[in-house]
């Protein structure tokens, strides 16, 4: 049976829907990815997390959960149900939070999402990044 769109999978389990919404808030281009494209991004994130020390992994998962709570407290909705404006406000509030812990958490999440999206060859090609081992020879 084909899983429904963005079915809970991998490290993030039931939080994956929220993670995908947060990721779209961070890199809007992610909204254009189909499920397979999103899974490729999530897999890079999961692999990066798996290679980091366990406490760091736990902190990141906890941060995604905390963002979910803040979203519910503030907008009575989980991140996956927020429109772009409210999602942007939610992210901006943690990015500039007075609490270093929240700012750090957001920085970590943002870094992982960037890693998942911007290391894909398709993403690099889409912005015209063309570095090649052959250097000048490949251009002339």
């Amino acid at each position: 049976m084909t899983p429904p769109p963005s079915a809970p999978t991998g490290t993030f389990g039931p939080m994956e829907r929220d993670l995908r919404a947060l990721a779209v808030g961070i890199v809007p281009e992610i909204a254009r990815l189909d499920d397979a494209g999103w899974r490729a991004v999530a897999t890079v994130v999961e692999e990066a997390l798996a290679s980091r020390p366990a406490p760091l992994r736990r902190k990141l998962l906890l941060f995604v959960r905390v963002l979910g709570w803040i979203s519910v407290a503030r907008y009575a909705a989980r991140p996956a149900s927020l429109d772009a404006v409210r999602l942007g406000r939610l992210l901006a509030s943690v990015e500039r939070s007075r609490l270093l812990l929240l700012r750090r958490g957001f920085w970590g999440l943002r870094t992982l999402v960037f890693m998942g999206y911007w290391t894909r060859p398709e993403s690099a090609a889409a912005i015209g990044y063309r570095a090649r081992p052959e250097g000048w020879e490949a251009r002339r």
Partner: protein
Amino acid sequence: MNERDYDVVVVGSGAGGGTVAQALAPMVADGLRVALFEKGPRLRDDEFTGREIEMASALYEDGGGFLTADGTLTLALGSAYGGSTVVYTGTSLTAPERVIRGWGVPGLDHADVVARSRRYADENNVHLLPDDEINDNNRLFVEGCRGAGYAAEQFPINVKGCLGSSLCNLGCPNAAKQGTNRVQLPRAEALGVEVVTRAEVLRVEERALVVRVHDEPQGAKGLPSEWAPGDYRVRARIVVLAAGAVGTPALLLRSALPGLPARVGEGFTCHPAHILVAEHAREITNDVGHPKSYYLDRAEDEGFILETCMYFPFTTAKNLVGFGEAHSRFMNAFRRLQMILVLACDHATPGNRVAIDRDGRAVVHYRFTPDVVRSLVRATRASARIFFAAGAVRVHAPSADPPCLEVSDAARIDERVSERHFLPGRTSVSAAHPMGGCGMGRDAGDSVTDAWGRVHGLPWLRIADASLFPDSLEINPYLSIMALADRVAEAVRAEATR
């Protein structure tokens, strides 16, 4: 546990360790047994693909994401056969006279550091790139500096047969960059120094090392270790530590040797840096050609250095402040982006230090002092002026809020870019020049070693890497590290033949 015996053992194969290995190698013919242990892997030439994620995980500690204790600074630490010289850019400068004088290390003379640096510069083919190999990103920096009233200087660099891949920081895919992996280590091995990779030194004991040789992780790049996996006790008359400014203090702290000077780990500096980008109206050559051809040295007057640079999509994305549409706008302008790396000249400050956690892993405690924030802000303002003078239409400035300056802001850069917008944890800061932690000096009261890298009170133990710096070097450090390591090797040679 397996047991092995040597005369001299070296830990770490970067700028310091590679230099020591080569300098001791001629003595192998006279019967001296020398081994070097490196915890990173030895890659085959065809494994240097230039692909961002796979090279970062193969060549950097924590895949390039090593964070300080409070998570506000990322340290780039190379970990491979060749250490950070595998991923460095190869800009080759000698130490400023005023800095070495200011360190006040008895017995350390600037002229000696320069003479030794020059020798390694010759050995590493250091030269200026010809004009036709300079890309637009670098040219615009020179033009912008001129327009803003500064004089850019050209970086001497250490390449041979550079094709201009621009991928230096992912390990040169064309074996052009003359790091210790290409020059000093192969020569040392040819003369009989044993280099053992995937060999992590767990601790130092009196005239011995405890080494764990690791299996090759499944699917990972690199050759298997030269030794069978397992634990080894390696005895030696002289132990030289060159595990870098994070690795060496951490190794000493977890070894808890009786008589170790109390200052181990103190005095850590790293040239905290921002990557700044600016958008031009037209496409420029940026991701082809050597990335770092020019710099502007304002260290003495304003506490910063500006360097040209060019990074890869993920590194760039991570280093821009913000998220969403505003962030993507800069990313989507990639072919029109000019980049400048701004480095602050930080100074040894109480509290900024290397420590270890309960499991003996390195933890770096680092806070941005007001001076560092001021330097980063000044550097950002200067860069914004340079970008606009070069014709940029929009500048990303991490210490502005919002972090984007339009041409219409060009007249009020000082107002828009300000220390009050520097928010640790939000503003991306990274550093690739870890220094200090086992500084040279007079005695155990003020330092860890003497001017020849001898640890005070433990004459069989030497240090030969960036951790020797008693304070920031205020310029790109690798040549000075090689010069200091050469001095350490000279003292070891004198003693080993006694």
